[in-house]
């Protein structure tokens, strides 16, 4: 059982208890005292066991605090990475080459030991997540500094060990923040490699947003591999995979000149505008059908963004602004009604 599974079970118990209280208050159900006591004991014991093993949130207040702690730990990790980076560059000129190499190698190793130590001491893994991301940042700094000190031309190959390091830490400790770091590195390597296959210099891979599509496809397909102990990783793969499709489409739908397609820019833009609506529409449908909340939400967001950017192109210059925003608002209400209808159909199908 993973921490996510344990949390789900705890959420179910909490919901069950609330519903039982409501049913009792409405006079629909009245369990005998003995059964009620036995049930309460069983649930208390289950929650205690889960809480001990996984350090999950057993109350709504705890859950809200957890979100706050996650955000704080993410921001803290980013700030610490920036601090390590700036600290090194502030003083590295005072050291000889051997000392510089030793320092940048020692930093991720020490942070790795720190991650292991924190993971053993604290089951919530907030501190381990922070130190783990610092270890990742130190490894990035390590290769960047070695490249600078020895005047090595930049290479996309550096993304591979960074990706591997991120994935190893993510799967070892169950840290989603490290998974995101690994995914970004892998996407960087795949996109740069795709760019070099088309013959261009690897650092120019961003000049053709289509280079991100194969990486996005790989990320979307990864959740098909069974992830029994890491089920909470699957939405992260899907979110980054979909971002790898939606963001390039958004860029290409507005700047056709940076496409690989050698057709007039207006035609490229039209093509990607249609693709944007089609892909986000299919993703909404799939998200509802497969009950993948993150897919539905992200696809809805981009569907609206595609729509609004198109309206902006068409109407912003000539339409009175009050009318423009009125139309946007009306369309939002229309979309809401459409999604509501889709939801009803889906619920009927499920019943």
């Amino acid at each position: 059982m993973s921490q996510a599974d344990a949390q789900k079970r705890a959420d179910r118990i909490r919901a069950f208890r609330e519903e039982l209280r409501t049913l009792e208050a409405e006079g629909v159900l009245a369990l005998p005292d003995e059964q009620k006591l036995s049930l309460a004991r069983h649930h208390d014991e289950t929650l205690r066991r889960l809480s001990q093993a996984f350090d999950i949130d057993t109350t709504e207040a705890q859950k809200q605090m957890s979100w706050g702690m996650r955000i704080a730990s993410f921001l803290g990790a980013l700030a610490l990475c920036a601090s390590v980076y700036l600290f090194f560059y502030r003083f590295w000129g005072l050291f000889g080459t051997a000392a510089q190499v030793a320092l940048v190698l020692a930093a991720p190793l020490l942070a790795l030991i720190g991650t292991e130590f924190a993971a053993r001491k604290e089951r919530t893994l907030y501190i381990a997540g922070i130190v783990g991301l610092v270890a990742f940042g130190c490894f990035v700094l390590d290769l960047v500094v070695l490249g600078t000190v020895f005047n090595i031309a930049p290479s996309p190959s550096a993304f591979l060990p960074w990706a591997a390091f991120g994935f190893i830490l993510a799967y070892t400790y169950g840290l989603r923040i490290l998974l995101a770091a690994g995914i970004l590195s892998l996407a960087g390597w795949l996109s740069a490699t795709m760019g070099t296959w088309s013959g261009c210099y690897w650092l120019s891979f961003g000049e053709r947003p289509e280079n991100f599509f194969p990486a996005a496809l790989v990320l979307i397909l990864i959740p098909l591999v069974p992830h029994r102990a890491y089920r909470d990783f699957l939405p992260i793969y899907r979110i980054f995979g979909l971002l790898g499709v939606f963001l390039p489409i958004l860029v290409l739908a507005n700047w056709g000149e940076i496409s690989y397609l050698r057709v007039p820019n207006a035609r490229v833009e039209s093509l990607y505008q249609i693709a944007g609506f089609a892909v986000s529409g299919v993703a909404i449908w799939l998200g509802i059908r497969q009950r993948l909340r993150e897919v539905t939400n992200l696809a809805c967001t981009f569907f609206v963004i595609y729509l609004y950017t198109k309206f902006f192109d068409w109407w912003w210059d000539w339409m009175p602004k009050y009318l423009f925003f009125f139309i946007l608002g009306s369309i939002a209400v229309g979309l809401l009604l459409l999604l509501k209808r889709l939801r009803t159909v889906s619920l009927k199908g499920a019943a």
Partner: protein
Amino acid sequence: MRRLGPLIACALLLLTNAVVLVGVAYNRRGEPEARLVLTERELRLGYEEKENTGLWLRLDASDADRWAATGPGWFDQRKLEEIGFDCAVPPADPTAELFYEKALPRRLYAVLEFDGEAWKSWISRREQELLNPAPGTSVSQTLEQRQKQLESERTGHSRLFVVDVGLDRVALRGRYADRSRYIVTGAVARLQLGRSWDESTKTWKGARLEGTVSEILPSEIHVPLDRRSVLDEVRQAQFKNENPIGWIDYGGYATYLQGPPRYRVTLSYGRRLEPWIEDVQALATPPAPGG
């Protein structure tokens, strides 16, 4: 995974560092691929950053014919095709603009010539432009000012010029065998559709394809601590001096040193074409003009 993970991560860190360091050792083993003695004209001091104590020199190599009015020079369509650019559409074709604006930069090898024919040809062209401008050319400076500028360029401009590019570094080294005058290094090249607008006929004319070397890889050379002392003194003197010797923007495209160079650097390139600084010496007196 829980037990093995930290060990695998640790092994990955050590292995990656080992691969990089073995590559560095391989690069510097044996006789250097090229060894040149350059001056401040070719290796300018990198920008000083407030929160960065590192120091690097920036390699200043000019693209000799890039801005020549006569055309693309050696980096023409034939050369572009040779290094892999698709030049299937004739430059004057109406679809050429759409076709060539999509061309992406390519990684290749460039040959940098130090103090050779390219430099001599460039400085003599500048002499012609400044002292004997073509009839009809607007000249804003006096003759004395132009003479001063020419002298300044003669003693301050980089003598390192890109003279060839290719995909085969061995073949390039075969053509440019003098390792004390020619550097073969990694570079990035771009394709451009060159043409000029004819106001009288309202059409483009003289359409042609030309290449440019947009980047030398690497162009920033790190200075290790044991080679810094001369450069630190230069930096300190520059900081104290009210009229520091500096680099002048020239037409927005090139830079040159105003005044005599203050240091000399022995720069070596290894088997993987990665450079390193072997030695830095202070220059007490300015070298003779042109040399």
